[in-house]
């Protein structure tokens, strides 16, 4: 279990202090695939670097299985890092070593015998699907292949945790999907806890079980992907989940409602039955539904006629539907 307690990070800069992380509290349980999303500059990389103390937090504690890393002496910390693997956007392979030697690297560091390391490296090459690239140098591989080698190298240290900092951001959509599949597979087969840093909701949708939303160094909300996707509670969350959605501030104040779907039904029948059963003609102002783990999730903004009676009827009707919640969004912004 990874537990972040009151983590703050302040960078001294020429223009004064920069608060990259502000009192972050987060729990990541074993076996989760935990996404951390946020816009560029939100502090995602800084946060993930705090987990293995590549970046020392200015304040707070990083607990891994109850052990406070910040309190460890340097030597112990270095040892501890060997059980926390990390992969990067730019792969960061050793360019002057063959793929096989790259995968051997963490074992070399840990003092595994060369012959044994070689044997295991070959197995990991197999797991990531590149058994014929043992003797190739990273420069001879494509981006996706390089990331596979980086994943094999990460596995070679037999980690409990895998940190991925924008691991697919330099790859095309198809390769991204393949790499995400591989990471998911590793999570399921080896039970490694995965922390995925990304700015793309698509990545979270694809593999994460939980997600936390980071904005300007502040943790906005966290929860299961289903919860956050179907009903983001914060402004930052909504912006990320519905990037093309309607800006709520620009809508007429009192007669806009948000309908959230938590699996199952799609929205067309609801609109139709709203018109037929209640005689309320709703106007779809914005909608974004997604397919998460085989169920439909999403939400939709409806504009209702300027009539309190009709609004009440519509609200009442929708509230009685299964797997659907509704809230008035006009009020808070009026």
């Amino acid at each position, binding site marked *: 279990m990874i537990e972040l307690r009151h983590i703050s990070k302040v960078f001294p800069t020429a223009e004064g202090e920069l608060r990259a992380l502000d009192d972050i509290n987060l729990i990541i349980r074993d076996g989760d695939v935990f996404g951390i999303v946020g816009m560029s500059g939100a502090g995602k990389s800084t946060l993930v670097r705090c987990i*293995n103390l*590549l970046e020392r937090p200015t304040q707070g504690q990083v607990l891994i299985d109850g052990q406070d890393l910040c309190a460890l002496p340097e030597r112990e910390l*270095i*040892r*501890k*890092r*060997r059980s*926390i*693997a*990390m992969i*990067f956007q*730019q792969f*960061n*392979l*050793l*360019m*002057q*070593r*063959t793929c096989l030697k790259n995968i051997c*690297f*963490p074992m*070399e*560091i*840990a003092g595994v015998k060369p012959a044994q390391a070689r044997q295991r490296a070959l197995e990991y090459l197999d797991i990531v699907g590149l058994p014929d690239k043992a003797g190739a*140098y990273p*420069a*001879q591989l494509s981006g996706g292949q390089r990331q596979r080698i980086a994943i094999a190298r990460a596995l070679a*240290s037999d980690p409990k945790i895998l*940190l991925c900092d924008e691991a697919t951001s330099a790859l095309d959509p198809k390769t991204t999907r393949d790499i995400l599949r591989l990471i998911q597979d590793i999570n399921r087969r080896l039970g490694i806890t995965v922390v995925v840093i990304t700015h793309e909701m698509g990545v979270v949708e694809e593999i994460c079980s939980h997600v936390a939303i980071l904005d300007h160094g502040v943790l906005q909300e966290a929860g299961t992907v289903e919860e956050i996707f179907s009903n983001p509670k914060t402004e930052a969350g909504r912006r990320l989940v519905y990037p093309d959605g309607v800006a709520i501030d620009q809508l007429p104040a009192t007669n806009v409602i948000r309908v959230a779907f938590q699996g199952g039904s799609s929205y067309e029948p609801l609109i139709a039955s709203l018109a037929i059963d209640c005689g309320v003609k709703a106007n779809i102002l914005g909608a974004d539904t997604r397919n998460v783990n085989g169920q439909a999730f999403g939400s939709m903004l409806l504009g209702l006629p300027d009539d309190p009676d009709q609004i009440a009827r519509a609200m009442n009707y929708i509230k009685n539907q299964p797997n659907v919640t509704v809230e008035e969004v006009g009020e808070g912004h009026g």
Partner: protein
Amino acid sequence: MDKFWNDLAEVFASDRYLEEFLTGTWESLYSTVIATVVAFLLGLALAVLLVAGERSGVRPLPGPLMKVVNILINILRSVPFLILMLFVTPLSLILLGTQIGTVASIPPLVVAAAPFVARLVETSLREVDPGVIEAAQAMGCTPFQIIRKVILPECLPSLISCFTTAFITILGYGAMAGAIGGGGLGKIAINYGYHRYNLAVCLVATVLIVILVQIAQAIGSYLSARVDHQGKTRKVRYRVRLNDPARQEETT
């Protein structure tokens, strides 16, 4: 002008000159090789200290210490070689028991070249991708392991280039050392060309130095490209396996 041609003809005719040039070349070569190896090792150590020890380095060292090392290197680099040599010859006396000759010129060459090598190597060490170093740190490498297993191997091709440059520079310094008591081709060129107005001998000695430089550069460039797997300098060779089942499928 007639004297020049006569002298030149004599250079190629007489065994005495041949022997002198052979000895000179040998002296130049071994003093340069020894001085380069020592200066390179010293310079490398200094460069590692500079890069690893700075505040954002892999093993930060006290700021004042780094300042002192930096200033020392700058001072040694700014003193002209000939003057430095005058100051350092007493060191040769202490170390080697003599102030003149080829061997005696090695310590001054080392002292003059090491700071230069340090800056040269420093630049190349800094070119190692910080991302790769970060990855190594994340994997739990100790600072020493990062230096030995990441930084140095990753810039091996450019270290070879640095060595080549150091060799050529020291060969040049060595020729200057010939003017004040050193041996080698430099001494021959100065002795004949300057003191005896025998320009032919001077010319041949100079040509020999040029040839040594060319050879050194060619070997250095070849080795550097040879060990580089980054893919920029060397053509990637694809091995085609004829019994590759995937290929056979394609053709049938």
